[in-house]
């Protein structure tokens, strides 16, 4: 089941901002041009009360006021009105619509649906008391909380190139939520957290796992540590459902980060995630989108996800008409095929060293987490 509605595009920080609704417009028009678009389920927007299951009243109040053009003087303390997360008219409702989509996904899972793809959301930086990094409300945590309150154990997998800090902190002390985030190390990239020793607190100890990766990590090295970590943790945790933030910004074309994945790695990642959901989570999986700031790359990565999600054969070339339209509109060339061409970026001289370092990070993480996770 796919969840989407046109109003997702109201979540718009304005021209020039990387978290652009054009990404959704390009994606849905591509899927239509490919003839694979099926009518999605239009979710209701989340209510204020639903947002308050994971956010503070004082944050929500400020977002609501800013939506009406009333600006509290202390907005920056709440991560609002900054360069990254500026305020705009109607932002409260725009954010609640995205939350509503992910929450509807959770409801559908509880109603017996096995696979849900929410074509939006993934606002993993939003914290209890502050907006952060393009994220106003945390749709993932609202959905996860709903699943947990309904008695499910939730494994959250964050593929975005940035650490999934908001989701991690909101559920930091919870036993029923496993968070797994693979990201470019906070030593180099926003938000700076996500080191191996952030393992959770209290009942949540050993159930918050972070694999920070060296800049310029590539397909093979990434997949090796991914396949080393994820099934190991899922087997130990035995979730009832997998929630996946499928950010596309670990792609080598991404202008905001420094990992070097190609679409071939994403294909294998998504196939693995679907297999892991079958093997360890009763087949139940809820995908959201996330970061991804190269329009060219993000749209192809998510088109790939859409096809694999539905078990459709992958197209080779993308429809000419679609590509010409968007090249003219964006004023930039687009990759003509779903997959990246071979040898799309220059060879990385430190490849072996980077892969070895990441392997060592995985070992350290597993050593630290094993005593808490395995028993």
């Amino acid at each position: 089941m796919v969840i989407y509605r046109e109003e997702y595009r109201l979540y718009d920080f304005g021209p020039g901002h990387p978290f652009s609704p054009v990404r959704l417009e390009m994606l849905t028009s591509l899927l239509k041009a490919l003839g694979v678009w099926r009518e999605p389920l239009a979710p209701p927007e989340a209510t204020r009360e639903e947002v308050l299951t994971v956010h503070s009243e004082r944050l929500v109040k400020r977002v609501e006021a800013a939506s009406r053009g009333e600006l509290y003087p202390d907005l920056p303390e709440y991560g609002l009105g900054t360069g990254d997360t500026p305020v705009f008219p109607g932002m409260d409702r725009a954010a609640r619509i995205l939350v509503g989509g992910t929450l509807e996904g959770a409801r559908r899972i509880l109603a017996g649906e096995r696979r849900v793809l929410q074509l939006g959301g993934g606002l993993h930086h939003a914290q209890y008391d502050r907006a952060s990094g393009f994220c106003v409300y945390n749709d993932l945590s609202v959905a996860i909380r709903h699943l947990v309150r309904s008695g499910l154990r939730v494994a959250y997998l964050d593929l975005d190139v940035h650490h999934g800090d908001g989701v991690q902190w909101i559920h930091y002390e919870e036993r029923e939520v496993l968070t797994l985030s693979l990201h470019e190390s906070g030593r180099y990239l926003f938000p700076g957290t996500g080191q191996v020793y952030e393992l959770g607190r209290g009942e949540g100890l050993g159930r918050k796992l972070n694999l920070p990766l060296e800049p310029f990590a590539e397909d093979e090295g990434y997949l090796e540590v991914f396949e080393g970590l994820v099934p190991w943790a899922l087997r130990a945790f035995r979730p009832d459902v997998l929630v996946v933030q499928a950010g596309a910004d670990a792609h080598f074309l991404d202008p905001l980060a420094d990992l070097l994945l190609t679409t071939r790695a994403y294909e294998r990642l998504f196939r693995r995630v679907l297999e892991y959901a079958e093997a360890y989570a009763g087949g139940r999986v809820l995908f959201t989108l996330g970061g991804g700031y190269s329009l060219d790359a993000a749209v192809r990565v998510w088109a790939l996800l859409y096809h694999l999600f539905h078990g459709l054969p992958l197209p080779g070339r993308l429809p000419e008409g679609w590509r010409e339209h968007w090249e003219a509109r964006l004023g930039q060339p687009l990759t003509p095929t779903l997959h990246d061409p071979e040898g799309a970026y220059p060879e990385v001289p430190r490849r072996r060293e980077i892969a070895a370092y990441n392997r060592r990070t995985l070992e350290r993480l597993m050593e630290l987490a094993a005593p808490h996770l395995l028993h």
Partner: protein
Amino acid sequence: MLVKDVMRHPVLTVGPETPLEAAYRLLLERGIRHLPVVEGGRVVGVVTDRDLRLATSHLHPGGPRPGTTPVAEVMARPPLTAHPLDPVEEAARLMRERKIGCLPVLEEGRLVGIITGIDLLDALLKLTGVTEPSGRLEVRLPDRPGELARLTGFLAGRGVNIHSLLSYPEEEDVVRAVVRVNTLETHLLAEGLRQEGFDVLWPPKKPW
């Protein structure tokens, strides 16, 4: 950052007549390593777990001292101390130069706290750590007046908030500045800085 910002208090102390075995039990039970020795309200020495272990070891050249020995016989004296208003780096320098693990903190002769190597590590973590969601810039600056101002001025002009700034001399005439800023878009900032002639080490320019 001052000593009073990182010191611990209240401080556990012993008297000079306290037997070694009692002092040892105290260290063990409280999970600490240092005990100021106080007599008549004055700090007269410091005894550490190492002092106790060496004094009571059967490997000691003079033979092990009995557990009933008063700590006054093995403590270091006179004690080296700090003032709450000393900068932490001054305390660190004294501890490094004298190779000691703690300084009792005195104010007008009164014991008000203690600072140990662990507290200095906390200070280091606080100075270099990530306390807010932020991105990182690393820039090499010529070591001359106005260069850091040019960098921070550029960031201010872009409406970027600086969460922390660490700089250290790298080689002759070059200072390295590590800046944590409240934005995901550090690549964009780096591009702008390079256009202004800055030598940006991180984030890198992509060749594609």
